[in-house]
């Protein structure tokens, strides 16, 4: 117990929580946008892999870091376009297409990696985003380093949360988007295009997922590794459910989740952790995600037209 208290009182722990949560926030917001418009995007895992690689590769070939983020976003949007084309106008199974996109994006990324760097045994490093320390505020004990000494991408993740929440709840575009996920026929009756709204949502959402992946290579690890996304995409799908399809709650979920993750990493180093197989610690993120799904299962917040294709002229 004392170990846990000690960890909770260290500033590095809270800084790690916010850092671990950042990629999850981008990808969770991306998935949330897709789902609010009525499309389940199981391409998330592969799109994160593609984003992680694309951003890193761009920077490695000499572009600036922000250009790298834009390249990652573009790569994500391309896969999003493919996903949206197949699932929205053609109305194909979102499960099958999503898994297909994950497989395609992952294998295409690995293929591109091997072509770009045929000879290397360990991937080259790039100069990643450096923390921006906000003067004065970053000196606050405990929460200062966590909230005010992060990399710009982390700040962007929180700004984006507010933007997505505002757009979804306070703008005509957000209303139309939500209606496309709840009652597409009503959107069509308003003279708006369900197809256009849904495709746009999937593309933007996929772009954000890719930025989440890019966070890993451009802010967290500075290198690209195979398997580095390691199920984070699937965890984000669970986080959307956990957050009841609301951006703020989903981000709280991501932070809570990241806290458990940061805690398990630190507990492994303690004498307590030495007696327990490390695999049990590594399992916790996945077990927690399943628990989160079970806890939230009774809440009926799921968009009514999620996974229901819309074909104009039919009922």
């Amino acid at each position, binding site marked *: 117990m004392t170990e846990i208290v000690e960890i909770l009182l260290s500033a590095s722990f809270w800084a790690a929580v916010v850092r671990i949560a950042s990629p999850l926030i981008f990808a969770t917001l991306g998935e949330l946008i897709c789902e609010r418009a009525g499309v389940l995007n199981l391409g998330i895992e592969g799109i994160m892999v593609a984003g992680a690689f694309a951003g890193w590769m761009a920077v490695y070939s000499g572009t600036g870091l922000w250009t790298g983020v834009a390249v990652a976003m573009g790569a994500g949007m391309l896969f999003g376009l493919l996903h949206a084309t197949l699932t929205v106008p053609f109305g*194909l199974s979102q499960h099958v297409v999503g898994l297909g996109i994950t497989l395609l994006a992952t294998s295409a990324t690995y*293929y591109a990696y091997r072509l770009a760097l045929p000879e290397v045994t360990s991937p080259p490093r790039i100069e990643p985003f450096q923390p921006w320390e906000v003067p004065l505020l970053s000196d606050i004990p405990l929460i200062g380093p966590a909230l005010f000494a992060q990399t710009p991408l982390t700040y962007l993740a929180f700004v984006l949360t507010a933007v997505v929440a505002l757009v979804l709840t306070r703008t005509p575009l957000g209303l139309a988007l939500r209606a496309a996920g709840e009652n597409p026929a009503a959107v069509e009756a308003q003279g708006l295009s369900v197809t256009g709204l849904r495709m746009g949502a999937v593309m933007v959402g996929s772009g954000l997922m890719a930025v989440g992946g890019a966070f890993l290579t451009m802010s967290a690890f500075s290198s690209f590794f195979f398997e580095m996304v390691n199920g984070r995409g699937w965890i984000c799908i669970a986080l959307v459910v956990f957050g009841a399809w609301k951006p703020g709650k989903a981000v709280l979920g991501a932070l809570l989740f990241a806290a458990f993750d940061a805690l398990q990493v630190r507990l492994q180093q303690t004498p307590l952790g030495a007696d327990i197989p490390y695999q049990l610690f590594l399992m916790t993120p996945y077990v927690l995600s399943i628990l989160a799904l079970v806890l939230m299962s009774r809440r009926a917040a799921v968009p009514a037209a999620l996974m229901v294709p819309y074909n104009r*002229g039919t009922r």
Partner: protein
Amino acid sequence: MRLEPVAAPGLARTLGLPALALAGTFVVGALLVLAAGADPFATFGLIVQGAAGSKFAALETLNRATPLIFTGLAIAVAFRAKLWNIGAEAQLYAGALATVVLGTSALGLPPALMWPAMAGAAVIAGGLVLLGPVLLKVRLGVDEVVTTLLFNFIMLLFVSMLLEGPLKDPMGMGWPKSEALPRDYRLPRLVEGLRLHWGFALALIAAVVVWLIETRTTLGYEIRAVGQNARAARFAGIPVNRVLVKTALLSGGLAALAGFSEVSGLKGNLTQDLSPGFGYTGIIVAMLALLHPLGVVVSALFVAGIFVGADSMSRAAGVPSYIADILLATALLAMVLAILLTRFRVVRG
């Protein structure tokens, strides 16, 4: 644009479009090979040669197809009921675990009893692994896609834990692997002198059995009814939840047989890299077969051929073997689109 049903699709439509999808896949593949600076025709030639160009190559393809037939059947059965089992990888490892635990135990059964005992234990273990997510689905409405996916990660860590703990081979020089099954308990070869074990025959039998279940039994009828429209099926008095649970046991059991067959037929012991994603590839196998159990055999051979061929091509031509996964993912997406367009036409407006 919108879709309009085609009343009576002609032969050109029903066969031409899927053929076009395959052709499109190979165009994508050719572009990728060009990007790698190699000659597409020579590369595809090397893939075919590596998959079926010699007795050794063909046997390698059959061996690789064996677990894919099992996982493909597992997915086909589940998807038929719209039960999205993406956790065949976990079920495969559950089957492999059961096989190793029983096979290396001190039970001392004769092989003729041990084989069915190991297979049976594997089926039960795999079925139980899928039962969890399916119970969560029918009792609490928890989406099984995410839970089965997450179970894959949990199961792999569990296997790793056991391989570094109670199941660790003391003679393994520190490698995380299990003890090997005694020679007698390994599945014998189908034909003396050929590197192909009884697991392949078992896979073919499983395909026929699943086909019989789907076409000749009440359960098969119920599975299709639940898959086509669960609400209507419930209204018609079909116990939907019970059908889903039965489907889960069948699907999980089939995926687990892949683990049983790989351990007892091919590898002899359990390691963390027993499956290079057979559970996930099973989804492609099942979809390319349009979920038809006998079609699964054909598509598993095709998919295995591409993997084995690409491995051998990659060594010779220097094109990364990941091209196999890209080809299969493209084929999957192109094929589902083509199948849709055999039944619907795109109209403007």
